[in-house]
């Protein structure tokens, strides 16, 4: 009896009662089950799709010999060029040096009308052809058959009227779009004027050339940096890779070559991914160009 009493007392003092460790194990297993369940396939992961962001920058186009310019043209270029869908720029911007004043000019063709304009042009032509073709056969049968049925004639007239109406409508539409574009351009020009830096020339900080725009090298490097993704937890040391890139005039990557690998495999891989992603530049280059770029991990992480 005494011994059992002592045993009970000891049990009361002990941290782990006999069956408690087992329960602790069960509890641990259940807790481990929670993250497993979380990653299990029957919990649908929410996939968040970011809406595409289209940013178009017309002023900071890449040029070969940028002039000295306002500093924030450099800072600005970081973001504006980050558009994944750059297609809407088949605009006929000759890389010729422009006077400083007509900055709004490149803006004008840019907004919506760039695309719509070519659209209406071919269409009216197609419409116009139809009436040409149709009237031709009409006079032919007339002399043969003394009376082409009135119904036929009226149908033809009706068709003609429809076509004419459609043409008018199209013309109105284009006129309206033109006006809209003009208004938009005016608004953009106005806002540009209001900006205190609007009068500063566009260029690079250390620019020595005479062209308005940013250095093509900086542009390409910046664009590749935008496509680049790398976990900062993988970063070790300060690897630097040296890459040669060849781009065609329309900004297509023709070929690239590592002149020197960084030695950090993860970093090299990330660079290859970024370069592959930037095989099409958002803007055309002034000419087919060859770039010689150093990619430094620390610099790139800092700039992010």
């Amino acid at each position, binding site marked *: 009896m005494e011994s059992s009493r002592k045993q*009970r007392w000891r049990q009361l003092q002990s941290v782990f009662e006999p069956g408690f460790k087992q329960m602790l194990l069960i509890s641990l297993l259940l807790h481990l089950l929670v993250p497993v369940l979380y990653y299990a396939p029957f919990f649908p992961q929410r996939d968040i799709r970011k809406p595409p962001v289209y940013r178009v920058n017309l002023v900071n186009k890449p040029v070969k010999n940028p002039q000295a310019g306002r500093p924030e043209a450099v800072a600005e270029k970081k973001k504006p060029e980050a558009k994944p869908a750059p297609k809407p720029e088949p605009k006929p911007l000759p890389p010729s040096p422009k006077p400083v004043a007509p900055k709004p000019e490149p803006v004008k063709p840019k907004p919506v009308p760039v695309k719509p304009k070519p659209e209406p042009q071919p269409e009216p032509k197609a419409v116009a052809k139809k009436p040409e073709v149709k009237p031709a056969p009409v006079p032919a049968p007339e002399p043969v058959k003394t009376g082409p049925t009135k119904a036929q004639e009226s149908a033809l007239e009706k068709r003609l009227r429809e076509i004419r109406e459609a043409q008018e409508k199209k013309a109105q539409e284009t006129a309206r779009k033109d006006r809209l574009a003009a208004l938009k351009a005016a608004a953009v020009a106005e806002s540009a004027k209001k900006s205190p830096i609007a009068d500063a020339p566009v260029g690079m900080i250390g620019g020595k050339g005479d062209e308005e725009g940013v250095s093509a090298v900086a542009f390409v490097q910046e664009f590749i940096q935008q496509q680049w993704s790398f976990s900062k937890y993988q970063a070790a040391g300060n690897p630097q890779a040296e890459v040669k890139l060849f781009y065609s005039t329309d900004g297509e990557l023709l070929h690239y070559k590592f002149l020197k690998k960084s030695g950090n495999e993860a970093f090299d891989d990330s660079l290859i991914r970024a370069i592959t992603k930037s095989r099409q530049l958002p803007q055309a280059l002034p000419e087919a160009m060859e770039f010689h770029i150093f990619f430094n991990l620390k610099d790139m992480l800092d700039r992010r």
Partner: protein
Amino acid sequence: MDLVFNAGPVVKLVLLILVYFSLVSWAIIFYKVSIIQKAIKESDRFLDFFWTKKRFDLIGQGIKEFSSSPIANLFREGYHEMLQLKKKGPDAQEPGDFSLQMDMTEMVGRALRRATTQETHRLEKYLTFLATTGSTAPFIGLFGTVWGIMDAFHGIGLTGSASLAVVAPGISEALIATAIGLAAAIPAVMGYNHFLNKVNILIGEMDNFSQEFLNIVERMEQGK
């Protein structure tokens, strides 16, 4: 899950503490469920056994199989006390033996009270941890959250950009601490209340049994 790994060191520490709390409190909940379930079941069985046998010596022989019933333990203590008194009864010559002058009912009653206290302690063991978890885990989680949000705002101050994309990850990282604190506290509080109720019922049963046992002892004394 990335939220956890991206969190700062303080938030991580808080999360670790909370996971520990949750782990132990769940273990206690499982353990107590089994212990108290067994105690209630065996007490029921023992009471049946007690009222059908009606003889202390028979009951005393059969007591071995009710080891986890608190009421059976009560009986064992009381019966043991009775046996000792009876053993000392015949040779009452020794003047130093104080137990002779004592009233048997009172002695057994004291033994029962002591056993009741011990059993109560045994049943309530670990429950304080549940209570602690229930009351402090939300605060610990809140601390982690506040710290995380402080960090996030500090980051905003450094970068100077307060867009949602900058603020949101830090805050959601911080909020996970509160979430885990609540996740640890809620079952602990529920378990604590549940077990406290069950233990109180068992204590009531033990008190009732003590009274009945004393009555029987008293009747035996007077019938002598």
